[in-house]
């Protein structure tokens, strides 16, 4: 796979962004839309500047909930994956239920979460965890059960124990899959936290988060500020993904084929 030059990979999104904003202004002027219905990008940046302290504090609050849910999802997801990898029977009996949980919209579960776990931070962390849990489990299980057959044969011929096979072979072999799952989860965690704040936030937690701001700006009909909140949420998402991408690089760049090396 040929990678585009760094210059091109920076200029292309800038060019498409300029075109996008151009169309935005054109639509705004052409349809003569009111600022209430469609603010200009300028007005949104202005609102972001005016509200910067609130947005920054809100992003920090949301980040706490998102990180909490993400870490919990990782711990539970990896544990579940290790368990499921142990036997086909276990996978057969538990995986459909996991899938059923994933198919249930979290919005349906929020009243129950509120009832069982409570509002505020615990509820937000639970919602985030539910939303980002599945890709971690699914990808990690896939990695754990698809270790190279010849590697497995090698281990068996050395009379390796099941524990040795799991931790010296299957776990490292599953690392790339696990990190793929983690990257998907990283895009979902901030979304989950904002959604959680919106649904189950209260004064004990999430009251200052981005999800709460959405609610607050909406009731005040501060539409440019609402767009600015979207922008902030987007930035938070990028920070999450960047962190996991960094982790991915740390774990894989030395040996994995997804990182090309030209040193020989």
């Amino acid at each position, binding site marked *: 796979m040929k990678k585009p030059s760094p210059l091109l990979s920076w200029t292309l999104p800038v060019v498409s962004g300029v075109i996008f904003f151009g169309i935005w202004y054109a639509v705004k002027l052409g349809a003569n839309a009111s600022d209430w219905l469609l603010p200009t990008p300028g007005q949104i940046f202005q609102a972001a500047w005016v509200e910067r302290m609130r947005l920054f504090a809100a992003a920090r609050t949301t980040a706490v909930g998102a990180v909490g849910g993400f870490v919990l999802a990782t711990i539970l997801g990896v544990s579940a994956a290790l368990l499921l990898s142990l036997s086909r029977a276990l996978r057969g009996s538990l995986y459909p239920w996991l899938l059923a949980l994933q198919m249930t919209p979290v919005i349906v579960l929020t009243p129950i979460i509120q009832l069982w776990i409570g509002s505020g931070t615990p509820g937000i962390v639970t919602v985030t965890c539910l939303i980002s849990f599945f890709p971690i489990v699914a990808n990690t299980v896939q990695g754990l059960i698809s270790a190279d057959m010849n*590697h497995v044969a090698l281990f068996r011929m050395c*009379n390796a124990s099941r524990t040795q096979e799991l931790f*010296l072979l299957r776990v490292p072999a599953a690392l790339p899959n696990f990190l793929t799952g983690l990257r998907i989860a990283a895009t979902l965690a901030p979304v989950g936290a904002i959604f959680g704040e919106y649904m189950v936030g209260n004064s004990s937690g999430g009251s200052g988060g981005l999800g709460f701001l959405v609610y607050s700006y909406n009731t005040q009909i501060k539409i440019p500020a609402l767009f600015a909140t979207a922008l902030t949420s987007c930035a938070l998402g990028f920070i999450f993904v960047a962190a996991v991408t960094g982790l991915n690089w740390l774990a894989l760049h030395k040996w994995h084929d997804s990182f090309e090396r030209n040193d020989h």
Partner: protein
Amino acid sequence: MAAVSPIVNFTSLQKRYGDGPVVLENIDLSVQTGDFVSFIGPSGCGKSTILKLVSGLNPWTQGDLKVAGMKPREARDRQAFIFQDATLLPWLTAQLNVEIPLRLRRVSATERVNKAREMLALVGLAGVSGYYPRQLSGGMRMRVSIARALTLAPELLLLDEPFGALDEMTRNRLNEELLALRAQSPFTAMFVTHSVAEAVFLSNRIFVMAARPGRFHAEIRVNFPYPREPALRASKEFQLKVNEVSQRLHEVEEPVHA
């Protein structure tokens, strides 16, 4: 005593997978300690299956198989397997890959570091012990794989087309290195290959196999004394032996269907 009893002994062995076709039929074979036995034949003749049976990975359906007088599984400590591709763990350096069999047998850290270092030096790779497999050439990877197999000083080495994916020059060099390693720490070898010249250069016994069902068609003795020098390949006797094996192989080749 050890010299008279065969290290691997097949008696009237038959192998089939479930209700499928018979993979191996009526296999009688005894490999003596110190033998270098090659198996050559068309695809589907079951030559790789023979190695898998010896390693205890697969069960057979009839007859018997003993390795060092034991069931194959019980004799695992005495044997090592080299696969067609090097099957190195990509997340471990060459050094750590060679340490794997020692680690699986819970050999102490210092001992395993020293042993692996020694084995890498033996295959001429002391300088790249910190490299990851993808940084090594195909030939180097196979050398690491050989070093890994020999760390436990196996009595019996099973090789399943180990040099099939390499270019001819690398393959010839590795053939020579394999014989040199065997001179230093003697092992009995069972070697599966598609190359007649390779089989003749390495072996003292070559089994030509036929397919459907897999069976022995001919055994050819190769009596060139060890150590064998690269110059042997240029000799007339070598060429005659290659011709003889090719001739026997030709007899079992199936006509090509359109």
